[in-house]
């Protein structure tokens, strides 16, 4: 019964978005018809043989960004869902909004706490915006220009995948990261992790995490320690994240509640678990993120935390297991990174194995190897690489089981 209700709700939600889309198309048509007419007028120039045939994919990208694309499946029944890539990506961007807005505010909040100054909400938000916005702009400009260049050279369409990646990259970086580093890391991840494998949908590892891993190994002094997590930080104040404190053997952590609502130093988007869970809820309801993956990651992390609690040899191991879920990028990674449908396994059993192993590895790396404070990034990248193998094993096992069953049937 509950299931039915749930799917009904999901359906109505989808109907709402789709209907509103169609409606707006009808209503607003008159107002934007000038733009539509203009686009239609210049369209032939970009078709084959036209003046700007070389820029066809750029034109197409802008057209489908502005309007519902006119290229739909004409025959056959390939449609699985009314949600296409454009809408999927927009949903993810919407789901990221709470965490992003909170992150912007938190950058300001942490800054004024470090200065021991009182400031109004808008002043904090404004300061955060001034710190965050350039990073986001750099990430989008660099990434999109590389995407467009590759699309032109290879004559394929520019697709919307980068809209999400470009927002994820700033959200998992420290607020004080130099902009040129963002540019280098974005270029590296788009070229090496994405375009080298054939572009959107073909990548093996998550491009946003690749950018973070690149920075983490290339410029460790700007990515870890206690001087990078608070923008404009005075020297006397230590701005260590909870993970950073544990790395130095300091177990005097902020309370679980503070870490849950997010008033702690950290990467721009990862601090507030409430905002992340809100976004996650939207993704799960819309059927974009797999609840199976998210829950198994939590289960893996909790399980490993409990095992360490049982051993309890160091102060780090004695840490309550639920702290692991609240520290660092665990929650953010579980909901926005690991669920990326391109790099996660496709089979249901595979998703569970993948999630469990991510949770286990993330906590294992954190506790056992203090040189890598953030185990979540490495755990997800590692399991990204293994996910095709997991799928393969699950499918092969299924085939074998069915074969045996078929052999045992006596006719």
């Amino acid at each position, binding site marked *: 019964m509950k299931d039915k209700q749930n799917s009904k709700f999901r359906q109505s939600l989808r109907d709402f978005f789709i209907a509103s889309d169609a409606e707006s198309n009808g209503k607003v048509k008159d107002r934007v018809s000038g733009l539509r007419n203009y686009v239609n007028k210049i369209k032939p120039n970009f078709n084959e043989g036209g003046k700007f045939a070389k820029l066809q994919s750029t034109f197409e990208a802008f057209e489908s960004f502005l309007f519902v694309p006119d290229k739909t499946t004409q025959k056959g029944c390939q449609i699985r869902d009314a949600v296409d890539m454009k809408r999927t990506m927009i949903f993810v961007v919407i789901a990221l909004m709470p965490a992003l807005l909170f992150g912007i505010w938190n950058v300001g909040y942490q800054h004024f706490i470090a200065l021991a100054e009182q400031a109004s909400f808008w002043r904090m938000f404004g300061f955060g915006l001034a710190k965050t916005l350039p990073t986001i702009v750099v990430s989008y400009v660099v990434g999109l220009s590389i995407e467009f260049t590759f699309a032109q050279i290879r004559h394929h369409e520019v697709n919307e995948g980068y809209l999400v990646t470009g927002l994820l990259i700033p959200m998992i970086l420290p607020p004080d990261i130099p902009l040129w580093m963002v540019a280098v890391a974005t270029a590296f991840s788009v070229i090496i992790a994405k375009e*080298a494998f054939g572009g959107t949908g073909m990548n093996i590892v998550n491009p946003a995490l690749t950018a973070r891993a690149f920075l983490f190994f290339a410029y460790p002094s700007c990515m870890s320690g206690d001087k990078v997590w608070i923008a404009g930080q005075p020297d006397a104040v230590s701005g260590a994240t909870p993970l950073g404190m544990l790395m130095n053997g300091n177990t005097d952590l902020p309370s679980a509640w503070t870490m849950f609502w997010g008033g702690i130093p950290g990467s721009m988007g990862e601090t507030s678990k409430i905002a992340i869970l809100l976004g996650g809820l939207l993704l799960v309801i819309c059927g974009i993120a797999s609840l199976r993956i998210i829950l198994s990651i939590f289960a893996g992390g909790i399980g490993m935390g409990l095992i360490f609690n049982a051993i309890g040899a160091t102060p780090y191991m004695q840490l309550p297991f639920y702290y692991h879920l609240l520290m660092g990028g665990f929650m953010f990674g579980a909901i926005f990174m690991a669920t990326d449908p391109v790099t996660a396994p496709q089979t249901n059993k595979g998703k569970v194995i993948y999630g469990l192993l991510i949770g286990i590895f993330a906590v294992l790396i954190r506790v056992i190897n203090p040189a890598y404070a953030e185990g979540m990034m490495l755990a997800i990248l590692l399991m990204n690489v293994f996910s095709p193998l997991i799928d393969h094993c699950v499918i092969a096992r299924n085939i074998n089981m069915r074969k045996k069953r078929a052999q045992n049937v006596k006719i």
Partner: protein
Amino acid sequence: MGNFKKLIIEPLRKANPITILVLGICSCLAVTAKLKPAIVMGISVMVVTAFSNLIISLLRKGIPSRIRIIVQLVVVAALVILVDQFLKAFVYDVSKQLSVFVGLIITNCIVMGRLEAYAMSHKPWESFLDGIGNGLGYSLILIIVAFFRELLGSGTLLGYQVIPQSFYELGYRNNGLMILPPMALIIVGVIIWIQRTRHPELQENNKK
């Protein structure tokens, strides 16, 4: 003369041992963090491939084919020990940096590969040239990789500071990932990518 050109030039381009045959990758990871060891390593491998090719080609009619690998190994091992001793005597610091990797030239796939594929069936002079050519092709890639790794990873070339101090004051940092071995693989990968894009005939036809 045409033959000469072909034997020396081709391994630099479309028959490159590293980017096309994908041999000798291991040492490419190990010794390319700095330019100087890479150059010394390239020359050492070139000497070993050239002379082992020459010697095996001279002996090729007398080697029973059943034990040819053992004979080849004896020749290569002898040459590698010679090179190792030579490096120890004349460039001791580089020899220390290269440590075991000089000894491991014995296992370098390029050496054995050229012996099997070329020297066993060609005349001595041509085999010698083939060895030089493949050694050069190997050195070329090693030097390109080491150039980028040392420049971006340490800001130096051959040990001299290249990136001016003012850059660092503006906030430039050396890229620590360049020093780590994975970056050597990524650079080799990028070189292969560029080469295959420029010469589409090198791409395997994977349309089924």
